[in-house]
């Protein structure tokens, strides 16, 4: 069953808190990872790996570089989990 955007956002917030120590209430859809949340490229890889474990959606490196905001990841996971 497809996850709702809210479910994905909640799950993603947990991952970001765990890996980068950013509190969940700061992880809002319009935030950019690099500039707003101060998350670097290596942490993005860790987030992608954790997202794969949690959502069953693989985010390869060549896709990952295009995911700039929290909403980008939510959309990517949403689309991929629907088509899976």
């Amino acid at each position: 069953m497809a996850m709702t955007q809210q479910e994905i956002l909640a799950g993603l917030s947990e991952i970001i808190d765990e890996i980068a120590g950013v509190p969940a209430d700061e992880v809002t859809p319009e935030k950019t990872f690099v500039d707003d949340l101060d998350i670097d490229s290596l942490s993005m890889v860790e987030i992608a790996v954790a997202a794969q474990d949690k959502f069953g959606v693989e985010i390869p490196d060549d896709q990952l570089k295009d995911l700039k905001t929290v909403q980008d990841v939510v959309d990517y996971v949403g689309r991929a989990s629907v088509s899976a």
Partner: protein
Amino acid sequence: MRTHQGSAGARVLAFGGYQPARVVTNDELAASVETSDEWIRSRVGIASRRLAGPDETVADMAVAAAGKALAGSGLSPADIDLVIVATCTPEVMIPNTAAIVARRLGIGAPGAYDLNAACAGFCYALAAANDAVRAGSARHVLVIGAEKLSQWVDWTDRSTCIIFADGAGAAVVGPAEAEEPEAGIGPVVWGSDGDMADKICIKDRNSFIFQEGQAVFRWATTALHPIAKQACAEAGVDPTELAVFVPHQANLRIIEALARKIGAPQAKVASDIVTAGNTSSASIPLALSRMIERGELGSGDKALLIGFGAGVCYAAQVITLP
């Protein structure tokens, strides 16, 4: 026809390490490429690294580290009958580094070969030494990891010049008798994946080290902890029994991620990269020798080693410290 019969087991008798004199700080690098101390510390965990002098060779560094290991073992050069040098940065392709090192240490006419498994090289060489002693093709083996990566680094490439460094580490491996089952070198768990050959490479003899950082980071933080745990299982050592975890000193964030995943919260974790940089095949014996010198580890301690790098190649084993 007769076949050889070796020793019941093999163990490390002593470690030795060598670092070149020149300390290069992050601020010094930041003066020539666009980077900063804060950026380097947060991305790779390095505060400073050591670089060889212009005339200092891989063999020079190997001799220095191996000389210390040999002295620590209490053996004489005449006792050594095999020398293996793990390196991916030899001065020249022929003659090999091992024969030069052996001659300079006064070791008679040992078997001598170089081995290239990049940053996994020391663990590959240790496995080869273990096998040689157990099979009877050698009795005492000098195992050396030595690198001069600085000569293969593009000093204008800020993604690699902040990481790689120079140094050497060595171990003397000798027989362990059946009555010392606790002293030994555990079974190696090793492998490779040539599909990732282009992720870390020197493309040709006119090129410098290239690394696709994110891809390597993803591989290192997802594929390797099962290998490390399998090495523990093969050795019959529970991760909670480990005194120290010594992964290849590639990047402090890889080291910390691996350490979290192997299930050994009590174990010390080697973090020599902070002041040594990434010295490829030298990093594991160099880190161990420095921890032993500082009195952080004791004889009989169990250490889990895992080397990993270009190829990609990887190898892990549990050893008992001398």
